[in-house]
């Protein structure tokens, strides 16, 4: 009896697995269609998030304010407008940008390392960035404009460099496994350093550091948001040109080489651009785990592995996902806020286990 029951439960899952992903050719039209659909979803989620929050704002009011803004009148005359346009909207946009940047990081790192577990977090880029930020906070860099983000950015880039050197030098071929391993090692070292700093600072600084460590999307200024958006868009255009090459690199370096890809040069370019995008995002938003691993995987399950489709859908889904996560973080214990990293980890860890189990079978 018990056996029968479990069989019946598993059947639909099996059925789903056998039939996905259904192969459809990746054409320009299809990429545009799916992207348009995802953009629509992103806009709906964004609008929903705009409505959600501690202060209730009536839907009709929101429409009226939006209509007013569309006519070119950006003056803020009420408290509701203030909340909508200078608190919620920038935060939503920023969440989208960070989610997209981390997802790009995941897609590209997973492809060039040929390892489905790679992402900016695992490779230590987030950790390095955090260490830079913490040192910045302790040295009092928060009193300078862009002080902490700048140090975080330096920390991220230094990590990329360090990971490279540990993995076998800046010259010569980059072995995928050694890069990932050295990322893990460097990350472990940084974690220890972060814990060390946490244990010696006073409680005021501790609070701001802890929030940073768990991801905080509320602090970025408009200028910083614009900076991150610029890096994301410019980076995406550059990376999209390499999308077909990524498909070949995933097949193995020998294969890519013989099919006409200059593998070393392509990999270096990809690493530089991707590191920049993720370093900017992490330095402004703090550490937000699991987005980079989860989003590309989930998209691959639905849309297949062709990077010409995978890259745009991951960007758009990553943006939507982090907006949802951040909205939940804002709303559940309002007026108190949860760090958004808590939400992504709470969704991410079980999903990760599901993936591993699925693979093992």
């Amino acid at each position: 009896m018990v056996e029968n029951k479990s069989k019946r439960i598993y059947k639909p899952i099996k059925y789903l697995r056998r039939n996905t992903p259904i192969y459809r050719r990746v054409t320009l039209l299809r990429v545009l269609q799916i992207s348009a659909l995802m953009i629509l979803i992103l806009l709906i989620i964004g609008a929903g998030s705009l409505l959600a929050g501690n202060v209730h704002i009536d839907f009709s009011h929101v429409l009226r304010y939006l209509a007013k803004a569309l006519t070119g009148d950006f003056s803020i005359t009420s408290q509701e407008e203030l909340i909508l346009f200078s608190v919620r909207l920038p935060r939503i946009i920023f969440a989208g940008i960070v989610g997209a940047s981390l997802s790009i990081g995941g897609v590209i790192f997973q492809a060039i390392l040929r390892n489905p577990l790679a992402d900016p977090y695992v490779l230590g880029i987030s950790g390095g960035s955090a260490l830079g930020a913490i040192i910045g906070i302790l040295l009092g860099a928060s009193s300078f404009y862009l002080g902490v983000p700048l140090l975080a950015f330096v920390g991220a880039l230094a990590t990329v460099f360090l990971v490279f050197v540990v993995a076998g030098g800046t010259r010569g071929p980059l072995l995928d496994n050694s890069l990932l391993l050295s990322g893990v090692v460097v990350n472990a070292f940084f974690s220890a350093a972060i814990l060390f700093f946490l244990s010696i600072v006073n409680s005021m600084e501790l609070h701001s550091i802890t929030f940073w460590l768990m991801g905080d999307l509320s602090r970025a200024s408009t200028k910083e948001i614009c900076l991150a958006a610029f890096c994301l868009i410019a980076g995406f255009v550059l990376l999209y040109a390499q999308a077909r090459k990524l498909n070949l690199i995933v097949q193995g370096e020998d294969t890519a080489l013989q099919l006409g890809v200059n593998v070393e040069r392509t990999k270096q370019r990809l690493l530089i651009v991707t590191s920049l995008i993720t370093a900017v995002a992490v330095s402004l938003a703090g550490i937000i785990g699991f987005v980079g691993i989860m989003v590309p995987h989930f998209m691959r399950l639905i849309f297949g592995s062709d990077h010409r489709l995978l890259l745009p859908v991951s960007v758009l889904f990553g943006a939507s996902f982090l907006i949802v996560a951040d909205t939940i973080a804002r709303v559940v214990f309002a007026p108190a806020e949860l760090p958004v990293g808590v939400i992504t980890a709470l969704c991410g860890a079980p999903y990760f286990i599901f993936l591993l189990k699925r693979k093992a079978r």
Partner: protein
Amino acid sequence: MSIISAENINFSYAEKLVMENISFAIDEAQIMAIIGPNGSGKTTLLKIINGTLFPDAGQMLIDGKGTSRWSRKDIAQKVAIVPQETAVIFPFCAEEIVLMGRFPHLSNYRFEDKKDYRIVHEAMEKTDTLTFAARSFDKLSAGERQRVLIARALAQEPKVLLLDESTVFLDLKHQAQFLALLRQLNTAQQLTVIFVTHDINLAAQHADRIILLYSGKIYAIGKPAEVITAANIKKVYDVDSLIDQNPQSGLPRLTLLT
């Protein structure tokens, strides 16, 4: 002029010399077999021919131009290789894999058009892989995977086709089909074929000329009857064999004496 020629090539892996003083020339539309014991440098030689490895000394020439002076994409338009195996980490279906063969003919932002899909369709038809075009590559059997990789190489529309043990996983029917296909491409489209194999009879039957490698050197090169002799086989493989003639083709036939 020969389409492929090697001039006094030396090559070493981590200080160890694995290719020594290799010279040969292959004319257009020739079928060349490379045979030799394990570790004699067959696969390395293939990689040097298609320019994914560069010789330490000497030159590998394609159309009279050294491989290091070609761009990767230009070589890939001329020379295709069917590797022994490919590990696939992310799910791609068979047609997507074959479509990758079109890479050297396309620029960065361009998507494949009707012509590319037609070429891919033909390549898959010839290799009998259309029935599982939409199936995930990693779920296919070894023989099916090998045929998909052959289709990918054909989709590259190469002038020179390199095969690294490409028949080992094929059943008899598909072996025969594949060999007939090679013959046909060879005569109809002047395709040059260079294949590495452990099957000496396969080499003897289908190659115009054979290179016999022995610890990184060319031990013998020439027509099948000149290379496949009991003395050469004894020296290189250290086995006793009987070499007679295939009653139909008159080409040498090897039987192991054990």
